[in-house]
């Protein structure tokens, strides 16, 4: 498809520039209800996104216009040629500040590490089924439903400057709903686990955690807590809190004035009572399906220390917005490593606090810093060391209220494309039951 597109582009593009983002996806998909397979699916598809660039001069000012079209592989050459002509016209209506396209690099593109062999994918699927139902057989809770997606993505980025880079990445995605009979009703918890390798130990820990948590939810009670209590967050909620800092240091946010962050700023402000945060962006972290050493513009990606001891060291972002902000081009680095902090895991759970294991959907509004979520499962740790699973209620707040006093655990965990402290403890959030 890419070669075909290149040929048509050569014929139609004239002096204009172009970028092709190509992805071939093959998948095997299984859908389970309880322990029975309900349906299976497979797919073999291609996604192709073509950006056409046009230099424009208007009233003595230079601009770079661009327009994007998607080329379905079923399109005829004539249809694609028509899309290119339309895009050249549309690009002429888009007057953006000038920027350069990525140039070829001498660097070798590392491949993403994985032990998944898609061609023998049924073996990985069998191992996944055995792992999940093996845990199911040992626990009170059980699988309600599960979807397994084993995918292989072949990705290629090419542009008119000579960039032409390709890599392959496998993905194993498990959408798991586990349920457990409580005294009053059956309860469930939802999880979506995405990994780039079949890491049995990692998967077992995550899946067992889901079973343990839903068993806790089955005995959880609705309570009234009408006072300010520290909140302990884990997993996706930790990632969501820290997405505020990666958004505010993104050149797109800076250029569009969604962020006023300046390099050298103390991102948490001064007089920090808790841990000062450090963040490094990384092309690859273990098990992350988002790992990549090249971004969509064709920029080769490298590790970037972003925030060190609370101080912003650099901006990060796409080639275009980095050029607009007149800073080094980092490219869009996919993984976020939030460095561990000073907190001892067991010590952090001492004293009265609410440790939240699952929200309905914990969200951070990275523009305003407002965050919140409804609690599906939490544990209320009392001052005397006793604890009680609770459910219902919500946690809300703003980053300004919590960032000076956050304690970050010294142990790490991995969730999606984040490596992060296993838990963080925050004070100043509002709790409503």
């Amino acid at each position, binding site marked *: 498809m890419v070669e075909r597109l290149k040929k048509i582009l050569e014929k139609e593009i004239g002096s204009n520039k172009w970028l092709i983002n190509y992805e071939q*996806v093959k998948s*095997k*998909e299984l*859908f389970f*209800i309880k*322990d*029975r*397979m*309900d*349906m*299976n*699916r*497979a*797919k*073999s*598809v291609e996604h192709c996104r073509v950006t056409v660039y046009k230099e424009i001069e208007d009233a003595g000012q230079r601009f770079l216009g661009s*327009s*994007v*079209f998607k080329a*379905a*592989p*079923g*399109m005829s050459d004539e249809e694609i040629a028509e899309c290119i002509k339309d895009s050249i016209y549309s690009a002429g*209506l*888009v007057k*953006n*500040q000038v920027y350069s396209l990525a140039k070829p690099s001498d660097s070798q593109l590392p491949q993403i590490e994985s032990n998944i062999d898609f061609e023998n994918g049924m073996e990985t699927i069998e191992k996944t089924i055995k792992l999940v139902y093996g845990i199911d057989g040992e626990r009170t809770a059980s699988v*309600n*439903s599960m979807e397994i997606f084993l995918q292989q993505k072949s990705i290629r980025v090419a542009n008119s400057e000579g960039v032409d880079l390709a890599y392959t990445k496998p993905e194993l995605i498990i*959408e798991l*709903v586990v*349920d457990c009979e409580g005294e009053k*009703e*059956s*309860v*469930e918890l*939802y999880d*979506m686990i995405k990994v780039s390798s079949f890491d049995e130990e990692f998967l077992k820990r995550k899946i067992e955690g889901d079973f343990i948590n839903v068993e806790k939810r089955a005995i959880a009670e609705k309570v009234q807590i009408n006072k300010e209590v520290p909140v302990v967050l884990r997993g996706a909620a930790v990632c969501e809190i820290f997405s505020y800092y990666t958004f505010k240091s993104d050149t797109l946010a800076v*250029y*569009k*004035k*969604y962020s*006023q962050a300046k390099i050298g700023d103390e991102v948490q402000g001064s007089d920090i009572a808790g841990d000062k945060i450090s963040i490094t962006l990384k092309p690859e972290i273990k098990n992350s399906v988002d790992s990549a050493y090249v971004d969509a513009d064709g920029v080769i990606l490298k590790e970037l220390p972003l925030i060190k001891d609370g101080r912003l060291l650099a901006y990060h972002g796409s080639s275009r917005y980095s050029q*607009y902000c007149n800073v080094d081009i980092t490219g869009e680095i996919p993984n976020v490593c939030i460095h561990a902090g000073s907190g001892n895991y067991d010590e952090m759970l001492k004293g009265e606090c609410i440790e939240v294991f699952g*929200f*309905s*959907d914990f*969200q951070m509004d990275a*523009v*305003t810093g407002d965050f*919140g*979520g*409804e609690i*599906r499962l939490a544990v209320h740790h009392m001052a005397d060391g006793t604890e009680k699973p609770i459910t*219902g209620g*919500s*946690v*809300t707040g703003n980053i300004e209220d919590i960032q000076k006093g956050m304690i970050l655990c010294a142990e790490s965990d991995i969730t999606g494309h984040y490596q992060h402290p296993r838990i963080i403890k925050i004070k100043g959030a*509002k709790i*409503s039951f």
Partner: protein
Amino acid sequence: MKAQFSEHIKKKKSLLKKLIADLSEEFEYVSVLATDVKGKRYEKDFSTSGISDIMIFERGYVARVYNGLCYSEYSFDVFDEENYDEVKKGVIETAKNEVNQLSDYNVPITKYPLVEEDELNERAEYEAGGGELAPQKIMDEMTGIIEEAKGYSELLVNASIRYEDTFVSKAFYSSKKELEQAYAFSTAMIICFVMREGKLKYAYDTSSARETATTFGQVKEKYKKTIDTAIEMLDASPVEPGEYDVICDPDVAGLIAHEAFGHGVEMDMFVKNRAKGAEYMNKYVASEVTRMHDGATSAVDVASYLFDDEGTQGGDTLIIDNGILKAGISDLLSAMQLGTKPTGNGRRESFERKAYARMTNTFFAPGKDKLDEMIGSIKYGYLLEKYDSGMEDPKNWGIQCMISRGREIKEGKLTGKVVGPILLSGYVPDILKSISMVSDTQLETAGSGYCGKGYKEFVKTSIGGTYLKAKARLG
């Protein structure tokens, strides 16, 4: 003008029919959904602009076959004489070889009955409004709006305007059915960002319609009000957590309908025993003034169609009638498992994804109350406006809605004080049973966003209603 059915699908029709006929020698049931969805997205803010194909662009096919035990599907996007055998092999490999391999692994497989179809041959090309707007006109008008907005308030640091038109063609073919449809819809959105003393806030407004062009016209008139609302948010304080009397605007009412009961009556969740609603059929789940609909023909908005992605004709399901849960919404396979009639709600994110029971146009029906009397009846509470997101919990009837703002009501009058953002949460029946008044205002639906199932499978839906009064926990 009318939406034009895809020339591409027309060209492939005979080959698709050949595939169905050939595969029918191997399988008792074979169907193919063909899709061709295209459109343009235009956007502009203070410093950048863009024109691109829409996110939901797709052109491809999904074949579904019955292998004697269960249903299997194969999605593909290249289909011609040259790769015909490869596609056919892909279907057989998936439906036979992989299923056999799973049996070898001792994986139990659910036994489904065979789909029973009646002969049906339907075709519709729906009215598409003004058709495709000229790109030059859109970009010029966007530039004009942005320039006017810049002069409206010095607090404005950025404003972004977006317009999308979408043209959908879908065909469903099986040995007994031949269904073809073409329709269009459009959405538009404006977001305004304001800053004072380092504090950044924003507000947005949207428009959607099952036709093109009109939504762009509607949203461009809204920029001043949107900037004013964003400025109000600069002084907004957090709400004191607690339970309040609230008036929900049609957007918030729609979100509650969607999250509270819409997801809860998706009947594939009944099959999985993931929906408490299954235990409450024909029982009170809401107050007597509550009536709730969902369906492709319930309203005319972005989720209105002739047939769903499994070849079932769309309908209008009265989910809650005078407070009583009357019916759920279902895809074809769930209906077969439950022994019910499919409601035309089997929808896919795209031809690449599985069909699930999904909502379409979901809303609370208008009531008999006057809005000013509803506000006047509140001693202390809030008028809730707009939302940012929502999350369902059909199994345990929890609800989470991120509401953009609340306007304080004291002694029956709006005080001018604004709080927000607000997290509305609680137990679904508590909220629905607390609905005491529903306004007689015009039904408003909005379909500018997407609805997910869990954290994936995004489809276009519209939600809405009129104003309703309820009790809700805010935080």
